[in-house]
């Protein structure tokens, strides 16, 4: 009985009742675990810290051998270079950032507008071969981009969508629709369909019931889903590099990758541009952290 009482009181791993020798061993293990976790955290975070450091270093410190970890001159020049061209005016990178905002934003909006109603319909109605349709939808998302880009390239060349923002928007929307449907179907499933039934008994049509009662409840889910779609489009590189070429159309990932094309590479600028590029993603990801598991598995795994 005494044991069970101890069990009920103990909150941590229940090792409190063990003799002191084992407790000591337990504490040693616990210390070891903390040390191991710290080491792993340092290793995983070091590249990020190094990127931040490089972005605020002067060029001669960036290339210093051996590498300077602490004693370097802090400068914000690299961040200025990201936005301002050497001769004044807007830099090519900042134009690429604006393109990215436009392409990612519009493609996400398109995927949401197409995907959310489809998710609702798949959740509520008995559709023929529903499971097969849903699996088919998800499997289009798994196609290797390099393979898809070959026919897309030929197709776009025929219809004049090569090197256009519309072309990128369409392909990103097509890659985000499967994700939106799977992710949103989970959210719709969580809203009881009885709400709609009740509304319909009050005289609303099914469409009105969806629009007035279910949709408002889905808004947080829609926001989370859209954020993930936004991150996918924002980070995407393969389609961007093969389907666009001119500065007026190019999004940020190929533009940043283009920084290392020349004979000398300004790594400080690369680091600053990468940080500016990554920061919104990290903020957005933090906002949707509750839905990360579902988000990164394309809506397939929920909690």
């Amino acid at each position: 009985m005494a044991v069970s009482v101890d069990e009920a009181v103990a909150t941590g791993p229940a090792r409190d009742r063990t003799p002191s020798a084992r407790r000591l061993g337990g504490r040693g293990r616990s210390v070891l675990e903390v040390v191991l976790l710290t080491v792993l955290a340092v290793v995983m975070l070091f590249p990020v810290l190094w990127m931040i450091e490089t972005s605020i270093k002067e060029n001669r410190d960036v290339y210093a051998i051996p590498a300077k970890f602490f004693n370097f001159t802090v400068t914000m020049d690299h961040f200025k270079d990201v936005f301002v061209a050497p001769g004044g005016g807007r830099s090519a990178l900042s134009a690429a950032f604006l393109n990215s905002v436009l392409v990612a934003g519009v493609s996400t909006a398109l995927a949401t507008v197409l995907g959310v109603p489809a998710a609702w319909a798949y959740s509520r109605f008995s559709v023929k071969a529903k499971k097969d349709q849903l699996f088919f939808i998800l499997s289009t998302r798994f196609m290797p981009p390099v393979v898809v880009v070959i026919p897309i390239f030929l197709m776009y060349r025929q219809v004049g969508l090569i090197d256009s923002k519309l072309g990128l928007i369409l392909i990103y929307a097509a890659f985000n629709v499967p994700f939106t449907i799977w992710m949103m179907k989970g959210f719709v499933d969580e809203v009881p369909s009885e709400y709609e039934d009740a509304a319909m008994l009050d005289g609303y049509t099914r469409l009105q019931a969806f629009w007035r009662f279910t949709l408002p409840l889905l808004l947080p889910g829609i926001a989370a889903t859209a954020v993930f779609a936004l991150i996918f489009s924002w980070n995407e590189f393969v389609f961007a590099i093969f389907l666009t070429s001119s500065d007026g159309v190019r999004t940020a990932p190929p533009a940043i990758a283009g920084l290392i094309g020349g004979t000398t590479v300004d790594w400080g600028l690369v680091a600053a541009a990468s940080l500016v590029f990554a920061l919104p993603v990290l903020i957005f990801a933090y906002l949707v952290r509750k839905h990360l598991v579902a988000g990164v598995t394309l809506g397939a795994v929920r909690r």
Partner: protein
Amino acid sequence: MSDPVSLTTDHPGQAASATPPAPGRSRHLSDRWLAVAFISPALLLLLAMSVFPLLWALYLSFTDYSATRGGPAHFVWFGNYTAILASEQVHLRALTTLIYVVGAVTLQTVLGFTIAYLISRRTRGRGLLTTLFLIPMMLSPVVVGLFWRFMLDAQFGVINSMLGSLGLGQVEWLTRQQTALFSLIVVDTWQWTPFIMLIALAGLTAVPKYLYEAASIDRASEWFRFRTITLPLVWPLLLIAVLFRAIEAFRLFDLVYILTSGGPGVSTETLSFHVYKVAFLGFNTGTASAYGILMVLIVIILTQLYLRYLNKLKED
């Protein structure tokens, strides 16, 4: 005020007892119409942007079409396929891809699960730790690739600098045949260990506490608890994560493109990268299409496997 309320609560009973077939059917019909109207736009976009291109690629894969040469395409039927399947070059890339996928996914799984297990045993600071660990996963492959290329640089890279101050020799991480593929695996592992960690953590926190309590009443050893409680309960979820990563690693292109461009020689050319070279540098569109279709077949098989496990998980 009370009248309409009683009317609405009455209604379902009446409808059920009378069961008028006509309104029921019409509602069903309108439901069906609504389902079609809501689903078909999304499906049409997928058909236009995914299915149609793949069918076109399938058609091209039976021809000797070249995107630059132009001119009419001649049917060569399975010529492209037999050429690819018999090609020594392709076999080499398949081996590289296999080493890369197996190496990276194994490392990620071991590391990711270890981190998740360690985090799950902490009582405080879990949220913060998880958030910090997840950062690499959210970065674009372009950022990751560029940054590691800088850190792994043989002359002024920070990794070699640290090795130097430890008194160890310099390593040409990205420019030597033996180390380049290894470096690629390390970078991919750095980025995607958090993915496995995240999912393993979801599994670990879902293990009911009372199971551990019951086991500790029975004075079961730590290892026994891990083997008989933790692992069996987390394994199905972990398997999904592993399969997902395997598919992603198989189709990976951007990291190779940024980090090594397939070099030195062809030592880091994966199948994805080879397809790109055949299509956009060699301009053998027909051959590249056949190559791509074969890759799609492999992806479909892997996806089927993934979905089957997913289904199993959902049914439990």
